[in-house]
């Protein structure tokens, strides 16, 4: 192809691309599934959460707000002493501040936070981006199974 002058080769490239299929995906009608590990939104399972505030403290942008209070929990074994426990009143994540770094999910010692690849939750009014506890629990259904690891990988002991 040495002797074909540069500008003719260029024309060839554009013509060849014209004859091939375009790659555009027309979003509202055709949706591409994001990767299972994609960090779309954070889901919360309130049973695991022990209000230890680690995630709120480790978040670089301070976008997690937690409130809880002490309460007596029914004794596990009947006749036992009521157990001191704590109840989660408020667990808000402000997605207008969140930068999806995933430190909270990693640092949580009780596996209460999970990533879900859901990404279609944009709002017209920015205040609605403050997801309260209810919505975070709703996201739980969209959390996929952790994908199997590549060959040669050593599964971490408590793989999240």
């Amino acid at each position, binding site marked *: 192809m040495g002797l074909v002058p540069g500008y003719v080769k260029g024309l060839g490239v554009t013509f060849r691309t014209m004859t091939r299929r375009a790659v555009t995906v027309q979003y509202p009608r055709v949706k591409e599934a994001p990767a299972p590990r994609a960090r779309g939104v954070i889901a919360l399972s309130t049973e695991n959460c022990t209000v230890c*505030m680690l995630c709120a403290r480790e978040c670089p942008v301070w*976008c997690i707000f937690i409130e809880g209070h*002490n309460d007596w929990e029914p004794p596990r074994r009947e006749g036992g002493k009521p157990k001191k426990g*704590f109840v989660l009143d408020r667990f808000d994540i402000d997605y207008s501040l969140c930068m999806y770094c995933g430190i909270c999910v990693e640092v949580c010692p009780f596996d209460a936070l999970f990533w879900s690849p859901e990404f279609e939750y944009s709002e017209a009014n920015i205040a609605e981006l*403050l997801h309260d506890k209810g919505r975070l629990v709703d996201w739980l259904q969209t959390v996929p199974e952790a994908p199997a690891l590549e060959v040669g990988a050593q599964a971490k002991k408590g793989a999240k």
Partner: protein
Amino acid sequence: MADETLTADAADAPEEVEVDSARAAVVEALGAQFGDAIVDSHIAKGDLWVRVAPASWAAVVRFCKDVLGFRFFDFLSGLDWLNNPDLSGEKVWDLDAEPTVAEPRILDRGYTGGDTRFQVFCRLINIDTHVGVTLKVDVDEAAPHLDTIVPIFAGADWHERETWEMFGFIFDGHPGLRHLYLPGAFEGFPLRKDFPLLSREIRPWPGLVDKEPMPGENVPESAAEGSLPDGADAALPKDEPKDEPKDEPKDEPKDEPKDEEDSA
């Protein structure tokens, strides 16, 4: 870690001897040329630090460039060794406690550290032998002056403007010391340790922790003197040990009930 001060002619720590003959040679050459102007040098983990007397700063840089072959100008910046008052804002909002004044404790100055609070360090690289040297020089706080190396390395222009803007060191002979990043009317030197980080002063820290009585238990005396105004804003941890504000404030009462005011 290798000991701090390592005079030029002292034998290097044994395990480094065979690794850094090239760097030791550089130190020898500098020592031979400038004698006591080379105040201190340190070799650790395959890297070389040399501290130079402020007077012969430009001369050493020119010598490194012309004779020792350090032709690649990497960067130049400043260091402030004042201890770090609690910039991170991760402290408890103790409304009635008197503000803890950061006592001006100057920390020891890392490798080839001098005794003044400020330092300028510049890094040059010798492309052929892949050896990099970090030249350090002390800058005294009262009159932070240093002569410029722009005539030697034209690339130092922007670096010195940024260091002047961020630390307040005046580089004599610099073609045009004007602001690089900050707006013209900006006063104060942001990268100094005593310059507060405003964004974290205003907002209270969401990871705040305080103690709240168990419902139905006998109300501890802390709650007696004035009820918590609906528990939302006045977070008054009474038995909180007033330790160093900088390090990890609250991780010991693991099962402590958490309540904090929410300011979102």
